[in-house]
């Protein structure tokens, strides 16, 4: 029978992840955990694939804190279904190198096995995150860019 993840477990996981709490995370991660964050690693150093507890602990406790401090996550949506969890979140943090505040949305799809995190997939609004991390707009217009039908967008 599938283990049903509770909201308390989800909250404890995020608490440990945001704090980079090695002991808590060690207890919550499966030995064979697979961790994927989609995005440009040249700008967002913590993107990429990690396999196994040691690599994920290095990410959460060393790499991520070396880039961002005071990480906070606010859940906009939490969907729990059996051993799966999907969260839509807004992350806020301070860039360690210069103290600038950044904030962007990310989605997290987590799967538990034997009560531990065995897989996570993160989707970040990476264009927004990259601009904030760089501190400037990304130039996307060029003369070779195809012409598009004008399309007024109201925000």
């Amino acid at each position, binding site marked *: 029978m599938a283990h049903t993840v509770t909201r308390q477990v989800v909250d404890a996981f995020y608490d440990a992840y945001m704090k980079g709490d090695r002991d808590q995370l060690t207890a919550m991660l499966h030995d064979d955990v697979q961790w994927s964050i989609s995005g*440009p690693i040249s700008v967002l150093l913590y993107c990429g694939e990690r396999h196994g507890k040691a690599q994920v602990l290095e990410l959460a406790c060393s790499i991520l804190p*070396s880039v961002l401090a005071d990480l906070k996550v606010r859940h906009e949506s939490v969907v729990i279904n059996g051993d799966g969890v*999907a969260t839509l979140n807004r992350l806020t943090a301070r860039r360690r190198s210069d103290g600038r505040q950044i904030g962007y949305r990310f*989605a997290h799809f987590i799967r538990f096995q034997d009560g531990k995190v065995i897989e996570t997939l993160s989707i970040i609004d*990476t*264009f927004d995150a*990259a601009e904030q991390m760089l501190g400037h707009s990304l130039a996307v217009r060029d003369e070779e860019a195809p012409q*598009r039908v004008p399309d007024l967008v109201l*925000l």
Partner: protein
Amino acid sequence: MSQALRTQVTVQAATQAGAEPNGTDVVEPALVEAYFKAFASRDPAVFGAYLHDDVVWTISGPIDVIPYCGTHRGKAAVIDVMARRARNLLRDVKVKREKFLIDGNRGAALTRLTGRLADDSRIVSYRVANFFRFQDGKVIENVSLMDSFDAAEQVLGHAIEVGDAPPLADDNLVIL
């Protein structure tokens, strides 16, 4: 769309899924399945039957590159995004479901979207996360999130110059 056709579409969509939109926030998984199948089909006539009149639809991403990104309010605006504006950019869209979760009146899906650019027929493919909420048996809210940097590079057809990107430190080796 005529009222008769709208009713027919609603009944047809619900019948296919063995469920029908109801008037409460308790959402049957079959209805959520049917909605997402309609959404993935990109057929606004079918998809529209599942939308609340006051739906708020957000697609995160750079509107300079992907013009249908932004927040769209109301059923008509959302249908216009799906039926016209998205098709100005992408044709032959296929949505492959990788994860799908239902919890009460909320759902979440991780998908891989593949499509053909209308301008030059190049194929683009990227992951999209969709989070949606039902109210009165209809979708009242959706947020779509994508790896927008990757999507933008594919749509542009070239790498985005990031300029002064922070260098990879010796202890920041990333294994892909």
